[in-house]
């Protein structure tokens, strides 16, 4: 135990965290077990604090109510950080990720960058930051007098992926790690178009506003992980590009 655990925990001796395990490679299930980058990170953080983990796996839309209803200590579900959200919860950022334009293999509409999306249909996932980027595109296109963008918000990444596959949507905005996982699971069906964009979207662990002690503990534990090199090792193990490492020295 390197770090002092938070004094107030929902379940004594346990780090109770909420996660929406439908977001590979950060959190998903394999053979009924929770796996993914965040899950392992959670284990390591808990270990540093001398705690065990008690994950609560639920739908994305249930996470914030559960946090605010003091059902869980933290949300560990690759949540992106923005100003608005930061007013509601405390964030401890731990990664910086980019976003990808995914299209059907062969790129039938010849999309090369976000500049080409006007008049197209973009699928995004509920709770992901990509929705705001897609909406920005819509506003921009309208401003330029071009046909607008149709944004379709699906509940999970696989819904969005399916929409592109059956030509419901032309484009899927996904996070870079998510896109890598998707392309490797379903080879030959999708391809990436253009460059990674908005590559400094930060994701973090969320805590209640008044839980400063908890925030301190997470920050210290995270720093300890960075210091002993297991943070970088984890990133490497998940084949994430070096650029995601927000905290490495």
């Amino acid at each position, binding site marked *: 135990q390197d770090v002092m655990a938070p004094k107030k925990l929902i379940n004594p001796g346990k780090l109770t965290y909420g996660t929406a395990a439908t977001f590979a490679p950060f959190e998903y299930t394999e053979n009924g077990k929770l796996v993914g980058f965040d899950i392992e990170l959670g284990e390591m953080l808990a270990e540093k604090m001398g705690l065990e983990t008690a994950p609560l796996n639920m739908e994305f*839309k249930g996470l914030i109510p559960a946090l605010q209803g003091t059902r869980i200590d933290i949300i560990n579900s690759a949540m992106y950080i*923005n100003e608005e959200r930061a007013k509601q919860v405390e964030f401890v950022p731990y990664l910086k990720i980019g976003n990808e334009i995914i299209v059907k293999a062969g790129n039938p509409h010849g999309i090369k960058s976000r500049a080409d999306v006007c008049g197209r249909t973009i699928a995004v996932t509920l709770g992901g930051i990509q929705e705001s980027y897609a909406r920005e595109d819509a506003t921009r296109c309208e401003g330029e007098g071009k046909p607008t963008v149709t944004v*379709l918000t699906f*509940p999970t990444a696989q819904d969005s992926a399916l929409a592109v596959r059956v030509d419901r949507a032309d484009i899927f905005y996904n996070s870079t790690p998510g896109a890598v996982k998707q392309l490797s699971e379903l080879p030959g069906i999708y391809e990436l178009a253009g460059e990674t964009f908005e590559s400094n979207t930060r994701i973090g662990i969320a805590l209640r506003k008044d839980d400063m002690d908890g925030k301190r503990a997470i920050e210290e534990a995270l720093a300890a992980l960075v210091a002993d090199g297991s943070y970088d090792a984890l990133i490497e193990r998940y084949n994430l590009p070096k650029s995601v490492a927000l905290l490495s020295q």
Partner: protein
Amino acid sequence: MFDSPELIIEYLISPVFLNAAWLTLVITVVSMTCAMIIGLFIALLQETNWPFVNGFVTVYLWLFRGTPVLFQIIFIFNVLPVFGILLSGFLSGVIALALNEGAYMAEIYRSGIQSVGRGQRTAGKSLGMKEWQVMRYVVIPQALRVVIPPTGNQFLGMLKLSALVSVIAVEELLLVANQTASANFRYLEALTAAGIYYLTMTTVFMFIQARIEQWVGARQGAVAKPRTWTQRLLGMTSNAGA
């Protein structure tokens, strides 16, 4: 619990929420209307004795009541395109909801039809009416009374069930609330705003139901239990005052 209650009002009058509420209402009413027609049709088909038709009806009821409507929505939205049928999200949603709900309505009508005594049908037949005329003029009007409360249930249920079409990105009320909330994490405010819309629509539906019940009851000379919706609300007020 609420950090900023004024947000609720802001949401309530925002065009996004208004549009979403309107869409939810339209989906509900259109789906239920179709479902009621489908259900009646199926219930009447069940009255026949043609094995082929009965087989068809059985499979329909079994499949559509047997699988989650969510699957049916996803199927119509995502699988039919493979066969070259590309329907809009709204249309896919309404078709799936109507077909699903139709199977439920069929059962409700069946129970209503069963509740009409056999003697009433016999009397209709003995006057020279054809089977369908007996149904139309004798059985169905009497079945109405029994059918209205569960139909009201289904209407209210559909109001909430329609939220499932969010799975195919139709921007109904609950999706909009979730979208709004996921951007700024003000879940309670967004959900409360949506809840107020739902409660308002429900209240209107319940009011309409009470009026229809009253009307049907009056036509059948019912004297017992004349508890109108208004009276109920009065009862409620007296409770609130207690």
